[in-house]
């Protein structure tokens, strides 16, 4: 334990190979990007023009609402599905490996392939609609691609996979004896969940939820491929890319990125404020 030695001066040299590229490629662009948002294309004087433009022109400020309108309902549903599945298969259950593996599987495929899958599966002639029509539940196929719902579904698939992959680990960490102790003391399954299990995983679940939320706020390829990027799924990143790649206005593009970053921080703040109001600490059994 105490074998870790205090660093000598020349030890710091070992950090040069990794820190120099990071300073040049990450820190410097980050700062430059921040400055860029206060400049107009082609000039170097500082101005608030980009931000004023963002918050007065609906072409820009609408992205805030459109993104959140898409992402917040999606992440809440993802939380419910991912939690429901992983909670059900916690502990030693037969088939746990297969269920967990398949739930997490979309994460391996990545967003572009998932988008393609959404198109194939949910298009009007895809399996989803064919099955529903054949069993007589609906007469007309649902329109689920190239609109809000296409992106929504893509977010759900990837979000559930991401959260489930984290929840499995979190739940494995909870000693099953704790639940059994509560049950043997007379608690029903529901009370055990409410008073013992949930308080113990609450903070970790919220952290994963927050991570997923801020990740999904950056949705891009799904918004473009299976959504309708001209209106319903015009998210932050869609607009940022439009500014950068079509208008070559990097200043405005970065302003959009910064507003997105701030939105993410605000949401993170809200989730962590909620998280702070419960038990935060080790969920393991002490020995």
């Amino acid at each position, binding site marked *: 334990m105490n*074998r870790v030695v205090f*660093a000598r001066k020349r030890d710091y040299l070992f950090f040069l190979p*990794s820190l120099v590229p*990071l300073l040049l*490629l990450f820190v410097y*662009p980050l700062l430059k990007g921040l400055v860029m948002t206060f400049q107009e294309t082609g000039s170097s004087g500082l101005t608030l023009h980009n931000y004023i433009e963002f918050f007065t022109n609906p072409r820009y400020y609408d992205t805030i609402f459109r993104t959140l309108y898409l992402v917040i309902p999606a992440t809440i549903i993802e939380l419910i599905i991912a939690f429901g599945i992983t909670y059900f298969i916690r502990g030693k259950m037969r088939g746990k490996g297969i269920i967990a593996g398949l739930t997490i599987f979309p994460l391996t495929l990545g967003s*572009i392939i998932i988008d*393609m899958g959404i198109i*194939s599966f949910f298009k009007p002639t895809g399996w989803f609609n064919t099955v529903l029509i054949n069993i007589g539940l609906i007469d007309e196929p649902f329109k689920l691609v190239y609109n809000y719902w296409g992106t929504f579904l893509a977010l759900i698939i990837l979000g559930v996979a991401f959260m489930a992959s984290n929840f499995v680990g979190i739940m494995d960490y909870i000693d099953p004896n704790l639940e059994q102790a509560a049950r043997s003391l007379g608690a029903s399954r529901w009370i055990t969940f409410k008073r013992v299990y949930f308080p113990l995983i609450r903070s970790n679940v919220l952290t994963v939820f927050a991570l997923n939320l801020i990740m999904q706020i950056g949705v891009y390829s799904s918004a473009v491929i299976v959504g309708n990027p001209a209106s319903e799924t015009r998210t932050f990143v869609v607009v940022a890319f439009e500014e950068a790649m079509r208008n070559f206005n990097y200043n405005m593009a970065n302003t959009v990125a910064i507003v*997105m970053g701030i939105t993410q921080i605000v949401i993170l703040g809200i989730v962590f404020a909620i998280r702070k109001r419960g038990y935060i600490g080790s969920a393991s059994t002490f020995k």
Partner: protein
Amino acid sequence: MKTKKTVSENGNYHAPVQGKTFIKNSIKEIVFYRGYQTVSWILIIAFLAVVLGMTVSVILNAFGEEWYGTFLPQGFTLEWFINAWNAYEVGEYFKITMQIVFIATVISLILSIPSVYILARRNFPFKQALISFFQLPFTLPDLLYAIPVASIFYSIGLAETMTGLIIVNLIVGVPFSVFILLPYMESIDPRLEYAAESLGATKFQLFRRIIIPQIVPGITASAINIFIRMFNTFTIILLISGPKTQTLNVMVFSVLQGSGSQPPAMLNSLALTLMIPLLFFSFISLWVSSYTQRRLGK
């Protein structure tokens, strides 16, 4: 009755227990639990059906002859796949991608290993802050640095070049390899190094003869993970890639983005060309991690 009362008045622990002669289950709880189980199974089956359905329908689409309104395609053919492979020069992009990602992985490892060593072995002020700093590039939304990097790269002429794409991959690669190598390095017993040092090894020999061989399993596992991560790098590559220098996923994305007139089978085939290497890499990664775990865990 009388005796019981006396006892509890005496403050004895054994106060009377009222009528616990017969125990039974609560019907409400049983019904509630059955309901919960049913809902959970529906949820699991529905979600897995969608995941499998999506994957299988991409594959069937890619290899199906004609598929309209029926449950299964009418026949199977490799034609779409071959067409897509040739029309989009998948082989060429695949080669470019592998070159970029492989070189960037090696550079990332070389640049990060010395730092990981110090992080694992030395204490110093703000160590935790430094570790957090290393995590920043892959926790922060990549758009925040991607746009300025693109504008810088365009102004100095690195954009749309292989060198540019390799360099840009390091933004994710270096911190990510620090992050995943650190646990491996921390698990190596430092006493081996003291032993080597006491036998008169120089710092360099120490590094080459003792530390490197020990973390080789860790490095291999990490290298594969870094490789997969870079293979999936998207945002920043999209911003600085040119028509001839782009990675496979950016190419696939560009095709899908403007895909109005293409037959769906062709697009599904294209998606498959991206899916197959991904599945292959994750399989390797699983295999290597279970192999190293077996070796480390004896």
